[in-house]
């Protein structure tokens, strides 16, 4: 018995201080270990005989392969009178060849555990195919059938028109989609980029001849690139891709002529009526420069300070401090010829006017005061820590590589990303803020006009649009002018 007691006392002496210390460490966050080294997948690339650029990122741990074929022609290449043509052409590629029906192509994709998607941006069209890694040959064979022998059959054109019409209608149920579309329509004015933001009605004007002409003009290997990520290397990829796509004939493609864009300078408020919307959705933004190494990184840190996450200024002010908004974030978006910053907030209707004032005040503040060291380091820490999360999924990795190649952003945003973020200081942020945030942004408000307009009466001038973006009337101090 005594022996047991002695042992217990001994055990308590040894373990007791340890247990007390355990509860002390609950009071403050632990000190992190050093940040482990980030080893990015190596990207290797080459150009095939027909001019097709091939890039490979090896991820031997993955049982999938993610493929992206990028055609360097997007919605801004659609003719002025046929917006939506680029997107429609891209979608038609998976809708059959002269010998293989659309249904059979779908069977082929499903049979390789595949998932196929098409995306069209103002600058390029992307075909994404994610599949089980044992089916590389079958995937490339199917892709080559789609790219080299599209049928553009009349029946499929009718079906796709119906599908796209319905899809656009569905998208218009999202106030944020409607707000972003309105903002970009205003910012891009007469620029070809504006053709990306069309209504469902324009689709019915497209014909087989238009689609074939667009395809003939732009779907060329020397105007395309292909990215493969997964359990393979450049040597294997080159052999297999050449085997299936070498017969794709090259032809000169006229480079797109893109007029320059001017940022909005004067105050402009647009209201889009969204019947029965419960809240006001604000989308506020303006143009910034296209991708440029010297400005990309300070702008990225600026965006983080302003509204990149829930601990950024906008969220903390509009949601946490003032309780005007359910959410408030900012983001940057890049195109080949420009970039856009946009603040998006979901706001309670009575606070919509005050929320607009707070957002513009935050935009103004960052042009007048340099960001504090704390905010700066916090934003940089976020961006560096978050970078690997953006490439953890194979499809995200291939998408990042293909976008980087399509926009020619280079290595600065890949292997030198962390170094470039680390070098940003408060002075550089102040410089880019002065350059891009001083011009007055365009303010778009989406909501139910029967609820919201009375809260916006103090605005000097308010353009009121319907859900499709047709200008209905203009209000001067709340009165139709």
């Amino acid at each position, binding site marked *: 018995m005594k022996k047991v007691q002695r042992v217990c006392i001994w055990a308590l002496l040894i373990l007791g201080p340890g247990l007390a210390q355990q509860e002390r460490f609950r009071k403050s966050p632990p000190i992190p270990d050093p940040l482990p080294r980030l080893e990015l997948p190596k990207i290797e690339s080459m150009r095939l005989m027909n001019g097709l650029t091939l890039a490979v990122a090896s991820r031997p741990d993955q049982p999938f392969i993610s493929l992206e074929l990028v055609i360097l022609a997007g919605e801004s290449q659609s003719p002025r009178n046929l917006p939506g043509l680029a997107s429609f052409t891209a979608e038609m590629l998976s809708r059959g060849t002269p010998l293989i029906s659309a249904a059979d192509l779908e069977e082929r994709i499903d049979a390789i555990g595949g998932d196929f998607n098409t995306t069209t941006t103002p600058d390029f069209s992307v075909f994404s195919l994610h*599949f*089980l890694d044992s089916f590389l040959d079958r995937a490339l064979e199917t892709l080559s059938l789609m790219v080299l022998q599209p049928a553009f059959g009349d029946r499929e054109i009718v079906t796709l028109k119906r599908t796209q019409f319905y899809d656009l209608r569905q998208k218009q149920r999202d106030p944020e989609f409607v707000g972003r579309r309105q903002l970009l329509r205003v910012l891009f004015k007469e620029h070809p980029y504006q053709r990306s933001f069309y209504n469902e009605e324009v689709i019915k004007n497209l014909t087989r001849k238009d689609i074939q002409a667009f395809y003939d003009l732009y779907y060329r290997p020397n105007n395309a690139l292909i990215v493969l990520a997964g359990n393979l290397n450049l040597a294997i990829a080159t052999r297999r891709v050449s085997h299936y796509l070498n017969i794709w004939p090259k032809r000169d493609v006229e480079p797109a002529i893109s007029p320059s864009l001017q940022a909005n300078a004067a105050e402009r408020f647009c209201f889009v009526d969204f019947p029965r919307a419960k809240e006001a959705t604000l989308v506020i933004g303006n143009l910034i420069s296209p991708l440029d190494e010297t400005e990309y990184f300070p702008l990225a840190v600026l965006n983080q300070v302003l509204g990149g996450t829930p601990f950024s200024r906008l969220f903390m002010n509009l949601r946490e401090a003032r309780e005007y908004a359910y959410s408030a974030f900012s983001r940057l978006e890049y195109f080949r010829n420009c970039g856009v910053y946009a603040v998006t907030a979901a706001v309670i209707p009575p606070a919509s006017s005050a929320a607009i004032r707070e957002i513009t005040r935050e935009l103004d503040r960052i042009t007048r005061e340099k960001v504090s060291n704390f905010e700066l380091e916090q934003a940089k820490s976020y961006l560096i820590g978050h970078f690997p*999360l953006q490439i953890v999924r194979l499809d995200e990795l291939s998408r990042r590589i293909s976008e980087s190649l399509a926009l020619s952003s280079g290595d600065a945003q890949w292997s030198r990303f962390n170094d470039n973020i680390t070098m940003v200081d408060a002075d550089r942020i102040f410089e880019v803020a002065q350059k891009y945030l001083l011009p007055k942004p365009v303010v778009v408000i989406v909501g139910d006009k029967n609820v919201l307009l009375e809260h916006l009466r103090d605005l000097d001038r308010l353009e009121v649009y319907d859900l499709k973006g047709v200008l209905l009337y203009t209000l001067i101090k709340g009165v139709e002018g």
Partner: protein
Amino acid sequence: MRPPAKKSRMSKTSIGSCLFFFFLTSLGAYATQEQAGLPFSFSHFTLKNGLEIVLSEDDTLPLVSVVLAYQAGSIREQPGKTGLAFLLENMMFMGSLNIGPMQHIGYVSRVGGEPNASTTEDITYFYQTVPANQLALVLWLESDRMKALEIDAAKAERAKQFLLDGISQRKAVDPYLNSLLAFDRLVYPDFAHGHSILGREEDIVGLEAEDVRAFYAAYYVPSNAALVVVGNIDITKTREAVEKYFDTIPPGKKPPLFLPPRPPEKKEVVQDFQDSLVPSPAFHLGYRVASPYSRDYYVLAILDYILFKGKSARLYRKLVKKEGFALYISGGIEKRKDVAVLKLFAMNNNDTMVELCQKSIMSEFNKLRTSDVSSEELAKAKGLFKRDFISRFATPAERAMFLAEMVFSPLGLDTLPDQLPKYMRISPYEVRMAVNRYLVPESRVILNVRLK
């Protein structure tokens, strides 16, 4: 049955035992189970307070994902108290003893991480992926809110308003939500399974801080939870860190027993639902099928892929593309803990199309009832299933969520390597038998959504 856990209980009676156990603990840290048939390994043990721990290495990128899962989904709610599980999920971000409101999100976001949470009918998950050197930060945050969440009336009111706003927004963007909730009440066998995670608005308004405290005390306890860590970790150090933060949290009372529902009466149910806000007529169709942990469930999961998954799936191709009876369809097997339902939702141009669409579905089921699916079609369905199954290990976050789900599954973690082969062995005959057994009128529920 859960797999036997390696206990790490400390002996208090002899230093010899203490040392012996320390030795065992160290050994246990290295006792990683190499799982044949899985592309990764994991180790599983249980803390003395009952908290289940699963650790798995993935050194592809310098990241770590942490999932803390509680068996605290909406099926644990009582009538009149719906929305409580989702409310508590939200309140878990509103501060605990050492961490202020919103600070959890702030701490994780500042280091570049992604914090999130989700509530299902069965389980509430809290998950975050952070740079690998910030693992201790997440363990500190999660252990604090498991140990001492701060619940008060003001926070409860704020969370309630958040939930009510969320329901209002969901209804604004999804005009068929009301009909779906009504359908779930019809097709599931009891209140526990049939009510929505979102909760009823009138119930949410009536919830009080005391209700939240009681739910937290009953279900947010170590013995009702599982912690999964996947990523660029050292198993030994991670085990030490987990024990440091979680081992001294009291186990809490044993959560109330959850009883499986009585099987519903075998009888077809067909009802109408009038709604003035829906853009077009539609219908919900459901079959009460085998339990998610039964042998037949493996066959039904493959049948789900034959009918609904992929662009060449039977029903989409037939109803939307070929016949044009439906504008849109979606469907699949939905499981709510121990109950599963094969569900379908279709939108149609008019009431005639609703009728034609339903007839066409029944005729397709009749074909499946009388003739085997081809080997090509079955192989395609299995290929798609395999893709989705192995996708669940593809990133640290997905793997951590999957492992957390498997900890609570009656199948258990040890059966994990056998799971995919079981699905891959399904034969055309088994599919036909499953259709004959489960896709029958007396298991069917239809709710026709009509324009008011």
